[in-house]
């Protein structure tokens, strides 16, 4: 009996602590939403419900001089290109590593895994110099082109998933005379959908939220991505601007990911958990080879 009472007390404490934490986690988002609907004159009022409700901030955001639609469009197509590039090239390599037998497979795969240890700053400087000499700095090409070179994380994630697809399917397809490409396209791509979805969300999120790379390759407003644009607006705001418009911009910028998150929460969380499993599975992979 006391045991149960103890559990109840602990449950209540857990609830209270989690609730307090949740307020701290969600609070800034509520403040963002609230401020974006406030009148500029009310921007520093400390009430969560706007004293007067307005949509003007959003209207102003999409007015000509801020070029917000261009920022949004840039973020959208660059992130989509990066996602497509990663999905295709990582799936291609992952299929080879998981299914096909060829000389140097383990060596190549180990090399690829090692590249995960290289910090982005190391690749950034030489890449920038190359793109500068190609006169591509200021365009979106340096941002999305490297996504078509494959990637260690995506390849690894997809390979692990492809390994779980029963090999009997491959053998049966082979008996029916299916070619390598057909096995890849007709068996592994459709059956790999859950892992592909997790990778797609993970990649899109990273691309959409990236600040460092667009800051280097598309540093000037208006032809840049949302993150750089918002950072620039913030700098302007400090010289007496409208935080209400800034919050409206922030809200619009996180909206696409929020929508994806609410519809595909499972894939989002799976992407993280898959990363958590990475370590243990790498050990497995090393032992096997």
């Amino acid at each position, binding site marked *: 009996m006391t045991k149960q009472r103890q559990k109840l007390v*602990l*449950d209540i404490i*857990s609830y209270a602590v*989690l609730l307090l934490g949740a307020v701290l*986690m*969600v609070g*800034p*988002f509520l*403040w*963002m939403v609230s401020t974006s609907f406030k009148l500029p004159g009310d921007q*520093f009022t400390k009430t969560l419900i706007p004293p007067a409700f307005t949509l003007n901030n959003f209207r102003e955001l999409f007015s000509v001089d801020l070029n917000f639609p261009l920022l949004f469009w840039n973020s959208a197509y660059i992130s989509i290109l990066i996602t497509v590039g990663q999905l295709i*090239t*990582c799936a*291609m*390599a992952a299929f080879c590593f998981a299914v*096909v*037998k*060829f000389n140097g497979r383990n060596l190549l795969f180990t090399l*690829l895994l090692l*590249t995960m240890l*290289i*910090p*982005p*700053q*190391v*690749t950034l*400087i*030489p*890449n920038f*110099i190359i793109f500068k000499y190609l006169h591509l700095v200021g365009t979106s090409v340096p941002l999305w082109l490297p996504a078509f*070179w494959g990637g260690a994380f995506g*390849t690894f994630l997809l390979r692990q998933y492809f390994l779980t697809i029963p090999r009997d399917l491959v053998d049966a397809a*082979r008996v029916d005379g299916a*070619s*390598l*490409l057909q096995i890849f396209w007709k068996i592994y791509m459709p059956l790999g959908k859950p892992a592909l979805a997790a990778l797609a969300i993970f990649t899109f*999120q990273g691309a*959409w939220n990236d*600040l*460092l790379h667009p*800051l280097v390759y598309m540093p000037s407003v208006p032809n840049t991505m949302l*993150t750089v644009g*918002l*950072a620039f607006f*913030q*700098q302007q705001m400090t010289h007496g601007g409208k*935080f209400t418009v*800034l*919050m409206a911009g*922030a809200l619009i*910028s*996180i909206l696409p990911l929020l929508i994806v*998150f609410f519809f595909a*929460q499972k894939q989002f*969380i799976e992407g*993280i*958990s898959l*990363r*958590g499993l990475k*370590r243990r599975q790498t050990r497995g992979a090393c032992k096997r080879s």
Partner: protein
Amino acid sequence: MDYGLKPLGRERFWLFALLAPTGIGLVFGALGSVVATVLLSFANWDLLTPPTWAGLVNYANLFKDPKILLSLTNTFKFAAMYVPGVVIVSLFVAVLMNRKIRGVSLFRTAYFLPAVTSAVATALVWNMIYGRDTGVLNFILERFGLQPVCWLCSGNAMYAVVLVNIWGAIGEGMIIFLAGLTAIPREYYEAAEMDGANDLQQFFRITLPLVTPSIFFQTLMATINAFQAYDYIYMLTRRGQGDSSVPVVVFSIYRNAWNFFNYGGASAQAIELTVLVAALMVFYFWLERRYVVYE
């Protein structure tokens, strides 16, 4: 291991084609970059005039230039607070959520929200929260009769930024720990209960040892992230002329290269960062062999 489909005839070409993008990335993107950055670190180059040989000057500067030294101390200070912060808070949250109480999925969504959205967008709100005269935090402090604090001034900015970075990282850590916690067999707890172990004993004798693989992984990831931290620092601590009140190494690399056009010096810093992180990884894996329990 000898599993695998043998490519037949023309399929060898297709195998090559499927691997080509990854091969190009490996040679040019990864290995080429490392070689290029190492070479650059021995040069002076502003990309306007031809590069000149610098020898070890860039590396000597790593130990002499007060700004570079400051960025290094800042990075270590940041990591020293951020890594334990993320690990402890997200483990704590995960343990609470693992108690099988109602509405857990709602809490999970709430805690994961900052991990979904961009640091740039949320930093804009944090800027309003931390504001000196108009900020929400100082408003609350004054309500309680306390003095307002300049949260983003030199003395406090480090703590303020660490706090926001932890806030943004709890969601991911929580998911990792929840996965680790749910993998612990319930029988262990049932057996412990039979033997009369209380909740605290159960946590320290069962949960903590069995969750060490997750703690190890999360510490590793948090350390890598700490040495990469940039977005919040850029958004919250920028000052005039592109300087920062908490310049960390990544910030300093960016500034050296793209504000001062010192690509050689920035390359040396990038190498320094890589070596530091690699050394820490070696140390962690040594710790892992000693302390981490794999079932």
